[in-house]
């Protein structure tokens, strides 16, 4: 058993090193509702064909600030408390891809490189010499080039797709950690309070210790 694990470690760590050769593009993740809504639109119309977002409910999208009509059109007859499902049944997925496509709720935090990885992956598709779809970050990828970056002809077309990839990344970053903005906002107050408190504690300490010098 231990030998097997060691062997697996060696093989896999080698392949991990090999894939690191492809540099990740840096993405500036957005947090405004418009970008997240555009990202959600793309994810729901394209990604949920195969992937689920089981930790995100339609209700969460409403809370995020996306218009009710839009969310209603996405959820169809599903109640607002439903998790966003994959349109593909597991059986069909296994038949088509050999495995169930991973859930996307945490995808933006689930790979080394996080948002940058996701963004670079979406833009990492290319057409191999024998006409198949390949990905620089994920050799042997089964997912098709949904954003169509490999087929982009002009710089404008490319820029458009990069924009789309950025919105998708932004939305999935939100999905992976929906409280991030709330957390950071609270963080400023907490740190501000602590700095004030610490200054006062320092003054108190100095005052108490000054007694020692007097005698």
């Amino acid at each position, binding site marked *: 058993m231990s030998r097997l694990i060691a062997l697996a470690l060696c093989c896999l760590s080698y392949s991990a090193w090999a894939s690191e050769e492809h540099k990740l593009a840096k993405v500036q993740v957005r947090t405004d509702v418009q970008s997240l809504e555009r990202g959600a639109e793309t994810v729901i119309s394209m990604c949920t064909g195969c992937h689920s977002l089981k930790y995100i409910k339609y209700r969460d999208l409403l809370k995020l600030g996306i218009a009710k009509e839009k969310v209603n059109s996405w959820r169809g007859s599903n109640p607002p408390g439903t998790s966003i499902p994959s349109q593909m049944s597991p059986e069909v997925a296994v038949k088509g891809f050999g495995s169930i496509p991973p859930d996307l709720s945490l995808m933006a935090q689930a790979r080394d490189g996080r948002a940058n990885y996701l963004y670079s992956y979406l833009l990492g598709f290319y057409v191999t010499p024998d006409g198949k779809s390949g990905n620089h970050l994920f050799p042997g990828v089964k997912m098709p080039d949904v954003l169509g970056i490999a087929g982009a002809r002009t710089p404008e077309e490319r820029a458009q797709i990069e924009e789309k990839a950025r919105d998708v990344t932004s939305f999935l970053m939100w999905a992976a950690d929906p409280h991030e903005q709330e957390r950071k906002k609270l963080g400023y107050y907490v740190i501000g309070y*602590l700095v004030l408190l610490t200054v006062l504690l320092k003054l*108190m*300490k100095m005052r108490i210790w000054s007694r020692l010098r007097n005698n």
Partner: protein
Amino acid sequence: MAKGIISWIDRRFPLTAIIKHELTEYPTPRNLSYWWNFGFLAGFVLVLQILTGIFLAMHYKPDASMAFDSLQTIMRDVNYGWLLRYLHSTGASAFFIVIYVHMARTLYYGSYRAPRELLWWTGQVLLLSIMASAFMGYLLPWGQMSYWGAGVITNLFGATPFIGEAVVLWLRGDFAVGDATLTRFFALHYLFPFLVAGMVVIHLVSLHTVKSSNPSGINLEDKDNIPFHPYYTSKDGFGLGVYLIIFCWFVFFAPNTFIEAVNNNPANPLVTPPHIVPEWYFLPFYAILRSIPDLLGGVVAMVMSLLLFAVLPFADRSTIPGGARYRPIYRVTFFLFIADIFVLGYLGAQAPTGYVVPMGQVATFLYFATFFILPIVSKREDKWLRARLPQELLAQFDRTNALAKGQNKGDAP
């Protein structure tokens, strides 16, 4: 009214006497630097870990099919669940930073030396217990690294001669890491912190018997001691403020620093992660483990790398009190040792290819060599220093040593 209540209690329980003895009249050297804040900080982190842990346990489900999901419920749906979880996960790393600084201070200033051997040893037991708690806690999120990390580490116990397989089976409760493992790790992860809290009390009783060491290493005269309260309570308060600013910055702005990306994938026994690494605080010991080609040898080396700290009070044969302040050779040894640990930590995080293995072996050799050369180095250094230091200072050193020996024989301090 308040006085009446206190005197009512005092007739039945030595409340005022305890406060006097342990706080308001407890003598503390007046020359302690901020490096002496870390013991208090460790206590604070322990309390914070226990409190956040209790509230997390109210929402967590220790079941292999529910654990990962329940964590996401905590992160998304429980009110301020994300705060609890990030405080706890960041707190685990913070605990080790604080403890390692606390230990490094002990090494640098020679605080482990007579009469503080028992204080040092109870600290060692605390460290081992905290490591065990952290290791078991890391399985609970039931992510890929939780699962495979626990597999690799429990596998090490298979190196136990004769009963290895039985020990591994007993630890896991199953042939592979699974639901049984998760449930027992959860039970023990809840238990251990309270054992740790109990051991902290023993650590403190021991401390209050021998009193704090100080940067000079020389036992101070009574006039140079000050009461713990209000002097060190106020100093600890300020230190706590600084600590909390740094800690909260990580909690609120970079909490994912301490959560491996791979661990955001649910545990999957069929997919091995590309590179299994333990948490950063285990990396130097992991590097030592990997440096020995034989599994049993590696495990023994790893265990010894932790246990050897216990021999320091005997290995250090210098008659100059304290640590690095008056002992230049000891100081150099200390910094080389710390640098070696950093090298080991770095190597522990790398895949074992190329230069990593031989370099790890050299670093491991140097790690152990430090312990084995200390008796010789400290004796030589002692001779060298005694020939050079002023008689007055040496006389003071000898008084300190005599006092330490007296305390060793059980004379009340």
